[in-house]
């Protein structure tokens, strides 16, 4: 059941969505059991930026029918502290590390990418150009030409596999995927959260989230994820990390059928920290029973 992704052999097809699993915090809660049963075949760390960020004012969470809205706002310690403090710990995880980075400008992004881009502990970079919580992240990713320019800048500073995490909040995601491909990306990942605004339950019309707006994730967006993954798979040859509302092996199998090479589990991990482990087992059972059409591993990979 192993798979080749961007030149690297991974044990199975299930990774985590960036920002939905903090392996360091999880180790504080679960101890060595976490590493012993690490549920992801590669670990994607939470988005880091050039300078530290506190993140958004609370409340940051809203529960919605079959999903949730978050407005976390990319809190992180900045790239320097990431390299000094977190990287050594992530390097001890039993799986390859994918570092997710973002910047308010192409320049900033290239700077972050350059700083992490030569570290041997890191397998690949994922560019977050689609976070709906930060105005800059949103805008870059939604306009194909802007996206292409940004990806070119990052491509120039690192030889590592480059995954572009596309924004779902766009008219035609395939144009963005093509822009990423044209600029030299090695893979794309999607979908990020859908722009969403919950109001305060007190009925006075105010917004619930501290930052005003957030992003919708979870089962509610599963069919939207399938639509976008399928559309991108039809238009670009790059391998795809598909995500959005995956709760069961069946959902992972569907994303793979739609053209993904890997699947990421996000929100479901909040309901069960070991969810991705269960999903991987369910997916293997479906594959063994011939009830999953998984694409041949790595075939679509055009990585270095």
């Amino acid at each position, binding site marked *: 059941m192993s798979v080749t992704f961007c030149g690297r052999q991974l044990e199975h097809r299930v990774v985590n969505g960036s920002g939905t699993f903090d392996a360091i915090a999880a180790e504080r809660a679960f101890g060595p059991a976490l590493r012993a049963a690490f549920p992801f075949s590669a670990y994607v760390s*939470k988005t880091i930026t050039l300078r530290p960020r506190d993140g958004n004012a609370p409340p940051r969470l809203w529960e919605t029918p079959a999903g949730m809205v978050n407005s976390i706002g990319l809190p992180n310690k900045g790239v320097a502290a990431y390299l000094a403090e977190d990287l050594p710990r992530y390097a001890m995880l039993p799986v390859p590390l994918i570092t997710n980075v973002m910047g308010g400008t192409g320049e900033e992004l290239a700077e972050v990418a350059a700083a992490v881009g030569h570290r041997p502990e890191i397998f690949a970079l994922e560019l977050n150009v689609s976070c709906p919580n930060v105005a800059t992240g949103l805008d870059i990713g939604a306009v194909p030409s802007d996206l292409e320019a940004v990806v070119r800048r990052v491509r120039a500073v690192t030889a590592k596999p480059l995954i572009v995490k596309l924004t779902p909040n766009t008219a035609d995601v395939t144009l963005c995927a093509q822009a990423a491909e044209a600029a030299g990306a090695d893979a794309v990942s999607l979908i990020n959260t859908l722009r969403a605004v919950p109001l305060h339950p007190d009925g006075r019309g105010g917004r619930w989230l501290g930052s005003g707006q957030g992003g919708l994730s979870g089962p509610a967006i599963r069919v939207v994820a399938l639509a976008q993954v399928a559309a991108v798979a039809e238009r670009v040859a790059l391998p795809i990390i598909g995500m959005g509302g995956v709760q069961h092996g069946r959902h992972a199998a569907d994303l793979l059928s739609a053209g993904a090479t890997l699947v990421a589990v996000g929100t479901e991990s909040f309901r069960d920290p070991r969810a991705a482990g269960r999903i991987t087992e369910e997916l293997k059972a479906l594959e063994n029973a011939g009830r999953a059409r998984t694409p041949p591993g790595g075939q679509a990979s055009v990585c270095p």
Partner: protein
Amino acid sequence: MSAPEVARGEDGRVLAPFGRRRGLVVSTRKVGAYVLLEVADRDGPQADPGQFHMLATVHGWGGGEDERPYLPRAFSPMGSSGGHLWFLLEDVGPGTHRLATLKKGEALWVTGPLGNGFTLPDAPSADEHPGGGRDPAFGGARRPILVAGGIGLPPVMALSGALAHRGIEATMLLGFRDAAHAQVAASFAGARLATDDGSAGHHGYVTALLRAELERDPHALVYACGPAAMLEAVRGLATGNGVPAQLALESGMACGYGACFGCVVPLTAGGYARVCVDGPVMAAGTLRSVPAL
């Protein structure tokens, strides 16, 4: 009080098994305005007072007219022994309602124990805990004052048991809305009671009792759990009197184990801490304020 074979992390907290597990409802009982839920959790380690579990029912979690709840909910057991957990619930929304109407034999998902609990006054490792919120001042011979407001009772109850077990005398101050809510306090023979409406005990807030206690004995230390406004008052009193205080906080949570960064509170030092991994018990001094939910 914790069984010796419980695994602890580097920061001293009791570790949770990785992944949610199935618990079974052993009994449910109304206690005044609350519901007491007993859960058989054979594989779970015993929690430290102040730690919590994420709970969700296996069936009927979500759905119906509004399709909530979807995420699990946090609850601090008020006691645990022999593989059983006791939760005290206040029915305030769809999640607590579903849990409060569970029937004997129904299954629920349990993840935990999570978070860091209260640091006991004589705990030898008190100074070593790096897990945010621990307060080195908690090592001396200060007299513990335990303050609970409403549904903040469970972790305080668990703490009082642990203190009694170690032979440490403590003062218990309990505040409730009214007599119906206070009914659950009947088992605390030595506790002093306040109700907002005066229908039982002191007429007024429990923080009035605390103020009086701190005036009598400035060399105390405070443990508290309750509504945000009460904790904010406790924080003010403790800070004002130079008395160390450990506050067990509430926060809206999605995951309970540090994954989502959704449950944060603002810190005096700037930035935020996650209530679920850096709390829920935090030293009053580290908090800029106790934010209303």
